[in-house]
Each structure stands twice: as C-alpha cells, then as structure tokens.
C-alpha cells in the first residue's frame, strides 16, 4: 500500500515535470 501510494506520487511528479517542460518552466529547486 505505501509502495503503491509512493508510485502514484512519483507519477504525479513526473507529470508535473513534463507539463513544466511544455510550459517552459524550469524547477527552481530539487527537493
């Protein structure tokens, strides 16, 4: 369960990163 939740969050992080790239927004920090 925790692993599935972690995987879903990682997928969302990757989706956000792809959208940011499409929008030309670079990450300001790498947490």
């Amino acid at each position, binding site marked *: *369960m*925790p692993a599935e*939740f972690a995987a*879903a*969050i990682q997928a*969302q992080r990757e989706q956000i990163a792809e959208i940011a790239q*499409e*929008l030309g927004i*670079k*990450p300001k920090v790498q947490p």
Partner: protein
Amino acid sequence: MRQIAFRMTAAAVLTGLVMLVAPAQSQAQSWPQRPVRLIVPFGPGAGADIGARLLSERLPARWGGKAVVIENRPGGDGLLAIQSFLSANDDHTFLFTPAGNFTVHPFQYDKLPYTNADLVPVARVSNTILGVGVPATMNVGTIADWVARAKAEPGKFNAAVVPGITEFTFDYFVKTAGLTLTKVPYRDIVQAATDVGEGRLQIYMASYAILQPQTEAGRIKTIVVNGRERAPILPNIPTAREAGFPALEVEGLVGLFGSRTLPKELVEKIGADVVAATK
C-alpha cells in the same frame, strides 16, 4: 567440520537478523503509545479536512482507543503544515494532504524546508474530485463549446486560478487549446467559485467540493472532471480526456505521510490500518 562451521555461521547470521527485525516488529505492535496527530494544510471544512476527521473517528478503534487529533495549518501553499509536521519529527505525527499541494513546490519556490525523502507515503486515503466550472449563464453544453466561445473572443475571458497543481494543469490546457485569456489569481478558493457563479469570471478549475454549492444552486455548470475516470457521484459529467482535452487530466491524490524516521514495518502497519478504516 566445514559443515558444522557453516551451520554455526548461518545460525549467527539468523540470530543477528532476528535481533535487527525484532525491535521494529515490537515497535509496530506497541504503537501508538499516545495520541496521534494529523496535520492538515487547510482550514476546517475543506475536502482533506473532512477526510482527516473521518479517520479521526474510525482509527481509535484500531489503535487501542488512542485519540487521533486533527491540527489545521492552512496557508503558505501547504508549507506551514509541512514545517509543523517536520518540527514534530516523531512517529505519532503525520501530514494528511493532497499530494498536489506539494508536487508543484519545486516550480514555485527557490528554497524548500524539506526534501522528498522527508514525506514518507503511508497510505492513499481518497481522491479529491477536481472539476472545471463555468458560469451557468454562459449556456455552454460542453468544454468544447466553451473553448470555441473563448477562441471567438480572444482576450475577453477571465479565469480564476489558485496557485498550485490546478493552475499548472490549467496553464497546460490553455496552451494546448491555443487560448488567450486573463488569469485572475485568488487565495480564497470559495470566493473564486462565488465570482464565477456570478459571471465575473468565465472558468475555474478546483476541487468539486468548492464548485458543488454553486453548481447545486444552478449558478455554475461543472463541464468536466479532471480524473482518469468519471466521479461516481457525478456519473453524467465526462472526464477531460473523454471531452477531448487530456491536458486537463490530473489525479487528486490525498493521503497520509509520515516521518522518515518511521521503521518500514510501522509504515506498513499504519498504512494497512488507515486503508482498512476507510472501507
């Protein structure tokens, strides 16, 4: 002789493993020893707060009667709640939040008071239903109709936006749909819905809990939901992908996050308890 030596070595290794695992198992069995805190990055009444309160009612029965206390820490795009969670640094304090509250932080802030490793996923509890609402007075049937209207009047439509994952996703939609409109930033998510319902703005992407009162009052039409699947409570509203605008697709992951100091066995136990309490 060699076989005896091997058996002795194997026994020693096994004993060592048992000694390593036993304290963690014992900790999982005896946890919790005191009340458990759930820190929520919203005020009372928000979707995540309601979910947290449901857990606070159900979990004590699984946790030897120990209370589950909700602490609301709204503001700062979720950073106030995260800081409060980190400062506790114990195995009885958890963050209860939509993941979208922090997954966009790296694109919003130059410095963050945490790393990804500080927020250990424990259990997914629910999906916030996200939707796109437009004024009912616009009389649009679908999001495609709305986009056609917006394209016919470039620069005349205003969108209510709240910083975070919804604004991010909405920006992507605007770009891929080729729209020109003005974004009006809001901090008060309820006021944004009120203003859309009164026709002062022409579109707003938000949790359905925020759109619902205006939708039920007939002032807002919710034209799509943003999840991969239709929301069970809104079976007649298409997903953004079904409606032809996959750029608007995003999941409203909501769940519990624990301290990085939690042993894995305890994370598994608490996760199982939380998921069981939601059924």
